[in-house]
């Protein structure tokens, strides 16, 4: 009952030099891309203005028995509209999948350390399944730039649900599903043409851990730097609880704060 009397507005936070806390935002659109895969769009000016590729937002269930954050990478920003793409895997994602435009949902963000996008480079955006959303956001960030190329390399189990979003921003979209192979198949195929521009080639990747590991090793063998966006169960998503750690060469690090992006070297996946 009482929490209503307190001001949580974004303006109040920003004018006091703070990051806005958890807040309720309007859901703009929810659609099913392929069975069990949902694209949800909500409106939040603060996130829309500040989010960078591979940063994530926490969504919160409207059911107060389900308190924990549900972190999702941002896949696209359009004005003040922020989109996520997620798979229905449990209680929270099932609840969010049943939201519709006009409903409301609680969010926090943007959170985490983004991909390090440098000038004058070619980017291979290597995504697998529900790891693809942050790479769409990376494609969008790269779309405006003359000094960079974005080549999306996407692997799916079956339906190529994200190709249409990748195609909006990436210079090239290559995708594959399990009937034909995986992202490594595509990388092998593309490799000969990739060195032509003479620019540095950088891999940004997100997907299942075995896939990212294989991608990192593939990259390492070819002297290509790779940045990998990791997942871990989170207690808070903003660095206060130390629940979300993974082991890196720098020690046991928080995925929500030191990550989600780590270099292949940090993860020890570069065979060095």
């Amino acid at each position, binding site marked *: 009952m*009482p929490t209503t009397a*307190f*001001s949580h507005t974004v303006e109040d936070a920003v004018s006091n030099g*703070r990051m806005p806390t958890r807040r309720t935002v309007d859901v703009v659109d929810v659609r099913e891309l392929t069975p069990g895969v949902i694209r949800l769009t909500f409106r939040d000016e603060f996130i829309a203005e500040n989010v960078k590729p591979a940063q994530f937002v926490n969504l919160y269930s409207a059911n107060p028995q389900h*308190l924990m954050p549900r972190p999702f990478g941002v896949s696209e920003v359009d004005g003040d509209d922020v989109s996520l793409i997620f798979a229905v895997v449990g209680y929270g994602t099932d609840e969010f999948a049943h939201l519709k435009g006009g409903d409301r949902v609680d969010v926090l963000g943007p959170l985490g350390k983004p991909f390090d996008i440098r000038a004058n480079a070619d980017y291979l955006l290597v995504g697998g399944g529900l790891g693809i959303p942050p790479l769409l956001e990376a494609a969008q960030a790269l779309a405006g730039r003359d000094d960079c190329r974005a080549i999306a390399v996407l692997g799916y189990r079956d339906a190529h649900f994200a190709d249409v979003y990748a195609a909006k921003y990436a210079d090239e979209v290559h995708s594959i599903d399990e009937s034909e192979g995986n992202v490594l198949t595509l990388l092998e195929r593309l490799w000969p043409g990739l060195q032509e521009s003479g620019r540095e080639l950088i891999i940004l990747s997100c997907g299942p851990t075995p896939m990212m590991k294989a991608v990192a090793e593939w990259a390492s063998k070819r002297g290509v730097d790779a940045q990998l966006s990791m997942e*871990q169960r989170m207690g*808070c998503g903003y660095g206060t609880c*130390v629940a979300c750690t993974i082991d890196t060469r720098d020690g046991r690090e928080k995925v929500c704060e030191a990550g989600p992006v780590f270099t292949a070297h940090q993860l020890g996946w570069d065979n060095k």
Partner: protein
Amino acid sequence: MNIEQELNETPTSVYAPHEWRHGTVVAGVPWKNPVGTASGTFNAYACGRFYDVSQMGSVTTKGVSPVEWLGNPGVRTAESPAATVNAVGLQNPGVDHYLAHDLPYLKDLGATVIANVAGHCDDDYAQVVEKLADSDADMLEINVSCPNVTHGGMSVGTDPVALAKLMDRLRPMTDKPMIVKLTPNVTDIAAIARAAVEGGADCLSMINTLVGMRIDIRTGEPIIANRTGGVSGPAVFPVGLACVWRVRAALPDIPIIGIGGIDSGEKALEYLYAGANAVEVGGAALYDPTAPIRVALELEELLDSRPELTEKLAKGDTWR
């Protein structure tokens, strides 16, 4: 009567500086207000992005050990109804890092700081207390109640003899007010509390987490790598309240910090009525970063209409 009417209708900012109307004194240490943050759910830098942490009655830092601890592996957290189950296992960079970074950072901000002390054995606790003895920390909290470490932690906090022995060793090492943090996972919390006080504790804090677990029905295996973890959040509220009530009945004079499931000013107030001197907000901060400061502001409004209570608090006395 509608409780809502007790609350001021003018929005109070969780971000802006605030003049606190109802301070208190806990074991001789002044708190700006009766609401602190609980250990392990507060990180100076992470929380400081959202609100001015120096505005809290106090802040308790994460358990600190003699050297860096890596904590438990793998998945460390799972959801349970109105709660979370966690098994971090006291990961922390060690007391030297704490003295070089977190503590000065917080003291520079003007925060009242409680340093939470962790150990796997009596020597560990002693080494940390020795290093903190002349530090800028305002209070030390001896964590003998962590359910997620194999040695030390809860094993000391469930055994009055072991606890008394530990306190006999730590007590002479510093003049700082020493809090002992108790676990609810015992048959008789009042007996443990008595042992702590006889060993020289200036203050008690309770509760730490309840032992709990979740299993993934897809695999049939525990979600958390450590298998069991500590339950915290709204679900544990009535348990923490009863612990404070019982210890207050057994020990009328010892300062008590009430912890467990606090997510609103009302719940904080229940702890004060149960006999706590002050409270701390823990797990609520995990899903609402500004929960601690919001609770402090909500409690303040509820206290405005309770002068008998605020008079006691101002003197460091308790309701019962």
